[in-house]
């Protein structure tokens, strides 16, 4: 009785070891290529929101910030800094709209130190195809309406969708998605405006 059981157990273990072994070899082989792909897609978006920036410098000068109140995610998020002649010309902030229609919406926003939004793009979302997915630049140019919009005391009330008395279009049949995105971009801009000390933090983005 014991013999066939232990024999089968050993065989199962052997198969598991072979499978794991082969997969770890494959993972080792594909890891550099995967990292490259991730970096390339991140670079493409960075270039998109902040065309003036030389990418490598932007990627190196990056700080990890933990601000769930403002940036919507429990874990740390990266903020890339772009300097011109030593002074910060713009931040590129990764932010999250936690209250999308179906889950969190990941965004990338370029913001000047005074809180002016230069450009914003959607990184990842699961919004309804055909309604909420107009936040993709591929589907609609709605994201361009954030270009060069300042967040100041006087404009604060205009940072909402039109239904709520603001200046941003909502989509027919989908108000929750643009509302969540507008709020997330506004919060990110306010966060930058209120924290000028971000400029002097040492870069510490490794491993995010």
């Amino acid at each position, binding site marked *: 009785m014991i013999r066939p059981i232990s024999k089968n157990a050993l*065989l199962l273990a052997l*198969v598991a070891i072979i*499978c794991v072994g*082969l997969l770890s070899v494959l993972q080792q082989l*594909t890891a550099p*290529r995967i990292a490259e792909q991730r970096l390339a897609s991140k670079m493409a978006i960075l270039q998109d929101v902040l065309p003036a920036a030389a990418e490598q410098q932007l990627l190196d000068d990056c700080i990890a910030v933990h601000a769930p109140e403002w940036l919507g995610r429990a874990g740390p998020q990266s903020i890339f800094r772009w300097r011109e002649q030593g002074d910060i010309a713009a931040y590129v902030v990764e932010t999250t709209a936690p209250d999308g229609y179906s889950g969190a919406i990941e965004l990338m926003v370029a913001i000047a130190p005074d809180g002016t939004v230069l450009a914003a793009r959607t990184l990842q979302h699961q919004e309804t195809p*055909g*309604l909420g997915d107009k936040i993709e630049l591929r589907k609609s140019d709605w994201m361009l309406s954030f270009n060069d919009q300042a967040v100041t005391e006087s404009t604060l009330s205009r940072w909402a969708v039109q239904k709520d008395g603001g200046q941003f279009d909502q989509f027919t049949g989908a108000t929750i998605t643009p509302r969540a995105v507008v709020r997330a971009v506004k919060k990110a801009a306010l966060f930058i405006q209120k924290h000028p000390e971000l400029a002097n933090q040492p870069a510490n983005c490794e491993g995010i």
Partner: protein
Amino acid sequence: MTQAYKELAAQGLWKNNPGLVQLLGLCPLLAVTNTVTNALGLGIATLLVLLGSNLVVSAIRNWVPNEIRIPIFVMIIASFVTAIQLLMNAFTYQLYLALGIFIPLIVTNCAIIGRAEAFASKNPLLPSAIDALMMGLGFALVLLALGAMRELLGQGTLFDGADALLGEWATVLRIEVFSLDHYFLLALLPPGAFIGMGLLIAGKNAIDHRQQQRQQTDKAEITRARVTGTIT
């Protein structure tokens, strides 16, 4: 021998089609078929996993004890899925993002373990490979048909975003059949998938039914011919 392969092809593509007849793997089938591109991507991925798992299962079929065959099959399938996932992540990153959770979910596609158990564990390498190819192709064709139907009705295009799967050149594949101001949501959302799937199954059954009827009338005519033959 070729007769047997023809039968395998007929089983996989039509008579015992995993999507339309066995109704296996419905979760990914219904979830990702909102565009032809996604359908094609998942179809190819499933086909590769099926081919790999059938080949390995068939190759080791004489060494696997009956009692632990299922866990071993599951491990083999999971390994292939992980391998495909890593490769897609490395080489077709955009599609990897688009298909997302449905690549790991290929593991739960019962069509794959079903073929391993029902066919590959009892047959030599070559028939197993052909069975996998035909079943995978049958599944992919259903995916494509449903994807084309939903994309056409939903957004009036075909092959939208094909460049994510096939590279830059594939943007020329995109066909805009008619342009819609608003997407027809029913086709794009899961209810549209269920309705489309129902229509496909109904269509297949109608064709089968008609064929059966024709065969019956053919038979009847043949018997009558034979009767007259004996009289003269």
